[in-house]
């Protein structure tokens, strides 16, 4: 047998990185297409807002950020859930299961992919907001932007992995992701404040990652300090989704 290199921790890290590389190679075309779509979405929404209210820059900014959040949500959810679902349903996961890599490394690679998508969409969005003159994120706010984008990508990727493991077939994944994205967009105040939601929908709004991502993105765009409540809620959603994902993964792969 050819000897393996490094200690267990080094091998786990290497497995995570090589799985991520494999994932990026598999998904390169669809990733670029989806990211492009997610940036086109706020441009379309912003254009509509401009036509409706040509002089109110606040409305245009809010709509652009809302579009960006929905775009990010769709990108991370769709890409991650499809990557997992196709691996699981088309035999790729069985092939990966023959490798000396842990389930944690597999999930970590997909969550990292989600974080990368979050950063990519947020970065493109920040460039779009600057070019369109709606807002200019200062260099000082860059660490905040990176942190929020990464946390957003992580929380959405956790939900994506859970959908990918739970869904019984690839066609269902498509329906589930589209429906989940729509429901999240409806119950989340991404184009208007949370207070505008009917009182019975507000608790559901708090459970949606979109609500917190939109609020935090708005804080960054308007150069306000980040809301600790939304930050904590987003972190809690990520932790809850990660826990459910691990449970679902174990059940899904040991059936």
């Amino acid at each position, binding site marked *: *047998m*050819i*000897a*393996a*290199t*490094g200690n*267990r921790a080094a*091998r*786990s890290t*290497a*497995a995570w990185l*090589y*799985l991520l*590389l*494999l994932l990026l*190679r*598999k998904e390169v*075309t669809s990733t670029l297409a989806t990211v492009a779509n997610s940036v086109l979405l706020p441009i379309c929404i912003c254009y509509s807002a401009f036509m409706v209210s040509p002089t109110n820059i606040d409305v245009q900014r809010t709509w652009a950020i809302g579009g960006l959040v929905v775009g990010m949500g769709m990108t991370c959810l769709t890409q991650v859930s499809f990557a997992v679902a196709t691996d699981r349903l*088309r*035999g*790729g996961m*069985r*092939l990966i*299961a*023959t*490798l*000396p*890599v*842990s389930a944690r490394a597999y999930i970590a690679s997909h969550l990292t992919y989600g974080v990368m998508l979050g950063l990519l969409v947020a970065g493109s969005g920040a460039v779009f907001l600057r070019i369109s003159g709606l807002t200019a994120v200062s260099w000082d706010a860059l660490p905040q932007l990176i942190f929020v984008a990464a946390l957003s990508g992580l929380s959405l990727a956790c939900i994506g992995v859970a959908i990918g493991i739970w869904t019984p077939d690839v066609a269902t994944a498509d329906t589930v992701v589209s429906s989940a994205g729509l429901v999240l967009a409806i119950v989340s105040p991404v184009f208007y404040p949370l207070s505008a939601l009917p009182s019975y929908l507000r608790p559901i709004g708090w459970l949606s990652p979109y609500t917190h991502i939109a609020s935090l993105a708005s804080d960054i765009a308007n150069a306000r300090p980040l809301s600790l409540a939304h930050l904590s809620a987003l972190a809690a959603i990520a932790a809850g989704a990660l826990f459910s994902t691990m449970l679902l993964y174990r059940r899904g*792969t*040991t059936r």
Partner: protein
Amino acid sequence: MKTSLKPIECRNLTFRYRGGTRATDDVTFSLCSGDLLCLLGPNGAGKTTLIKQIIGDLRPTTGSVRIFGEDPCAPRAEIKRRMGIIPQSASLFENLSVIVHLNSFAALKGIARKQRPAAVERVIEECGLREMLAKPAGSLSGGQQRSVLFALALLADPEILILDEPTVGLDPIARRTVWKTVDDQKRRGKTIVLTTHYLEEAERLANRIGFVSGGALTHESPLDEFYERMGQCVRLVETPDAGSDQAGNVHVMDTVEEAEAFARLHRLKSYSIGRVSLEDVYVRLAGHRAPLHGENA
């Protein structure tokens, strides 16, 4: 290195699905280096479930599996480093080329960077993949994809090979190439578990045969002993008439004398009496002796 430990040891292995269905039932066997156990049995007999427990994908309900003395379910990653596996329903990533698969899997199997090119080159040669290296896996035929899966299993030069129907869908030439590679691995002292429905494959490769039926390993022995289980049984094959496009009927008899009496009774002009084939044993073990009598060869 725990070289004195048996590569594979299963004791009273039972697996029940949540509904209570027994997929494997009190399976016990062990294999030494150089053993090639071929698991035979009808569809749904529990062969793949048994394989899944050996590789640690399913935890047995009761009983234990030990790979070099270790539980494959506990430190799965470490144990799998010593195994090369071809799962029955695994498939390649359609848009990735064969060479990308090989390089990625060499890295994921933990092969040192400097050793990877040699390891990849070795399996390309052994599995005859040279012509298809740049092709996306999705454009390969089913048989070619199985060859690539076989190459991936051999990458880290593992001590144990678990091959779940490795030649299904391969043409006769490709199948013989796989047989040669498996035989080479056996000669090099690898421990191999193979499931197949091709009895010729089992006869050519295996030195041990296991018959799985209803989740239980009803017979497990060296190939010769396996034949001996048929006692003095012989097969009588009627020679078809000249010009006939039909194959001759096959009859399994308990003794040569009984076969000759049968031939006299039916006034057979031309026939042959010989040793029973593995297929005859298979059919008898599967509990279908009756249809053999008078069955077409």
